[in-house]
């Protein structure tokens, strides 16, 4: 054989919930590269392993599937990668079929399908410890003979069997044959039935039912899936999660802000005054900061989501919420993306990938930014402090808190309404099936959770950073140039392009009660919603508005009418004031069209809502 062999390519294929990703993590450790497949927005996870004899293998973690007959973009990638049809992607030398040893039936059918492809294959019987604990007897020799595929038992979470798997793959790679697409053809219903019967026969011949079957899952389900109790538990979980996201993250967010502030001061001290200092401090550092500051919240949110996912709860949450969200035309699985959007729409839009059907996924992406993300909170807090009296109503409720609650509710209700309308207008009648496996509950593995958390954080920073950095520079340029003339009396931003745009756009915004200062603040506010607070501080010449919110609030209360303040709140419920989200939507939908649809409908709603709020408030004497 050729000594200078190229590294063998291995692809992991398996059912969802088979512990495929845990096995991938065990094989590759932290040496993972995450990118997208060319032309599609499916995540491509690749890692390197070094075999005993010093060679390297590249491992590809393919999306989980029940069949090569693909239904979603994710599953298409799996099919095309296995068949070697993927553009820019060489076919795998060895396929590793990953199976949950306690749940073999469906994966046996998949393996029979994979065999038709004709590539060398190894079967990893994962979670073998659980199978043994249940007293499940698998006749490995017989199974190996029936399938004609070498079998390795593994416990990915304990890294057991990983070396055996690597050497089995190595051995299989030795039999490299000039494989073609083999005999795989999309099976019809009859072929599927035949394969299912064959799988059933093998199952009966090789697997003895467990002596101590898992009854825990059933017992937990009777609590968590209780029609009423289950929903109450879900709501309680959400409440705890929100508390955690907002209260645990605060010290870290303050720390990041303080750190970046200090960095800005430090950099300002060493760079000569002028344009470079302004670009670095006001453009780059505050731009990076506006993304970075959300990282603690996103990490906490993802920690919850990953834990619940690995435990097996997320499928149950989708079950409980399906009918409730289904009334608005949303799929049960849209629950997780929409939940993430309360921290930030960017991870929410990215999480919509868990939805199989393209239509359901698009609907979810389109409404995700309506969820009240945490970047709206500084704006809401400022305006509420300025215009809503801090008083008790109905004996127990705080009026400011009520308004805040109302803004959250407005976001949720409008998301439901918009998805309802999207269903009616864009795809009438077509209802995507809701069917999914409810996996057995498992104790999450700490290492695997941490690896996934780290991965999510990296992806968020890369995606958001790549989009928001250039935009921050652009927004900085718009609000900096041209410089104010000699002896200018107004704040510098009034003389800049942003100022000119603000004044030019003012007539459009006059009907909804916005003055030109507000319109100016909206322009840098496009970079990220909370930047509008700083921008308002700049136009109203309040020094350091982030710490002196109270001063700014008093200024605004003096300058704006109540109607204007309320209209501004209404505007912020809907307006797509976050270019980073729009950029991610463009990437995830792979289409400019859907991004522009989003821009148009959200600005439309924002204008309408602000108009109605303003007019109503003026009519009631708030003008």
């Amino acid at each position, binding site marked *: 054989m050729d000594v200078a062999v190229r590294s063998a390519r291995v692809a992991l294929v398996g059912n969802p919930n088979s512990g495929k990703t845990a096995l991938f993590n065990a094989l590759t450790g932290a040496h993972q590269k995450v990118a997208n497949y060319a032309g599609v927005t499916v995540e491509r996870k690749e890692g390197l392993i070094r075999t005993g004899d010093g060679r390297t293998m590249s491992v590809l973690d393919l999306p989980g599937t029940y069949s090569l007959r693909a239904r979603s973009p994710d599953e298409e990638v799996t099919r095309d990668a296995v068949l070697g049809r993927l553009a820019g992607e060489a076919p795998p030398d060895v396929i590793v079929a990953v199976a949950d040893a306690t749940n073999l039936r469906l994966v046996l059918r998949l393996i029979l399908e994979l065999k038709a492809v004709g590539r060398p294959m190894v079967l990893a019987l994962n979670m073998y410890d659980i199978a043994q604990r249940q007293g499940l007897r698998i006749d490995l020799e017989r199974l190996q003979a029936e399938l004609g595929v070498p079998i390795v038992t593994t416990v990915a979470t304990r890294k057991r069997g990983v070396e055996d798997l690597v050497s089995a793959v190595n051995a299989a790679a030795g039999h490299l044959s000039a494989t073609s697409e083999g005999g795989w053809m999309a099976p019809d*219903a009859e072929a599927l*039935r035949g394969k299912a019967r064959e799988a059933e026969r093998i199952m009966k011949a090789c697997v003895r039912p467990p002596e101590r079957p898992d009854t825990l899952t059933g017992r937990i*389900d009777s609590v968590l899936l209780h029609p009423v109790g289950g929903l109450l538990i879900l709501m309680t979980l959400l409440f705890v999660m929100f508390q955690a996201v907002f209260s645990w993250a605060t010290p870290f967010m303050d720390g990041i802000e303080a750190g970046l502030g200090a960095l800005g001061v430090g950099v300002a001290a060493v760079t000569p005054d002028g344009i470079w200092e302004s670009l670095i401090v006001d453009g780059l550092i505050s731009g990076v900061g506006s993304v970075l500051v959300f990282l603690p919240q996103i990490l906490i949110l993802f920690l919850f989501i990953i834990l619940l996912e690995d435990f097996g709860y997320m499928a149950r949450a989708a079950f409980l919420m399906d009918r409730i969200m289904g009334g608005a035309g949303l799929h049960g699985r849209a629950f997780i993306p929409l939940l993430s959007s309360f921290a930030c729409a960017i991870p929410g839009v990215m999480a919509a990938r868990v939805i199989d059907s393209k239509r359901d996924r698009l609907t979810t992406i389109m409404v995700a930014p309506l969820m009240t993300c945490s970047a709206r909170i500084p704006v809401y807090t400022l305006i509420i402090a300025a215009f809503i009296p801090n008083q008790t109503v109905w004996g127990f409720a705080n009026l400011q808190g009520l308004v805040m609650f109302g803004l959250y509710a407005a976001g949720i209700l409008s998301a439901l309404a918009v998805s309802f309308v999207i269903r009616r207008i864009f795809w009438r009648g077509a*209802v995507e099936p809701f069917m999914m496996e409810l*996996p057995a509950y498992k104790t999450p593995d700490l290492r695997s959770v941490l690896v996934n958390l780290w991965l999510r954080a990296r992806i968020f920073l890369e995606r958001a950073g790549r989009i928001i950095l250039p935009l921050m520079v652009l927004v900085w340029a718009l609000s900096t140039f041209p410089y104010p003339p000699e002896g200018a009396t107004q704040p510098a931003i009034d003389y800049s392009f942003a100022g000119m745009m603000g004044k030019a756009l003012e007539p459009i915004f006059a009907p909804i009660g916005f003055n030109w200062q507000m319109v100016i603040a909206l322009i840098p506010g496009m970079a990220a919603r909370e930047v509008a607070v700083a921008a308002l501080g700049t136009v109203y010449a309040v020094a350091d508005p982030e710490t002196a919110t109270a001063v700014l609030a008093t200024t605004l209360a003096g300058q704006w009418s109540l109607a204007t303040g309320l209209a501004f709140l209404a505007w912020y419920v809907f307006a797509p004031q976050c270019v980073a989200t729009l950029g991610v939507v463009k990437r995830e939908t792979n289409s400019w069209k859907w991004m522009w649809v989003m821009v148009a409908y959200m600005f439309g709603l924002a204008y309408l809502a602000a108009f109605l709020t303003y007019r109503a408030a003026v009519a009631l004497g708030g003008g």
Partner: protein
Amino acid sequence: MSDTIKLSQARRGDCGVIVQVGDHCHHDEHALELERRLLELGFVEGARIELLHEGLLGRDPIAMKVDDMRVALRRHEAASLTVRVEPVA
């Protein structure tokens, strides 16, 4: 009494065996695709079914045991599965 019913009519606690997947009368692409998906998720003729849980609104969706795995389905999709219900022991 050993009845055959549509799975969509089943109630919590019902047990039975799948006797037919898909309705072999109308052959539009949508129904055929649904049939294949159900087969891939383990809903094959002969599989044992036990309905375990029902959702709050309209008792929908339903969660059931199919042989030894748990699967959730809307009643809408469950309508294309015919089940022979066995009397509860």
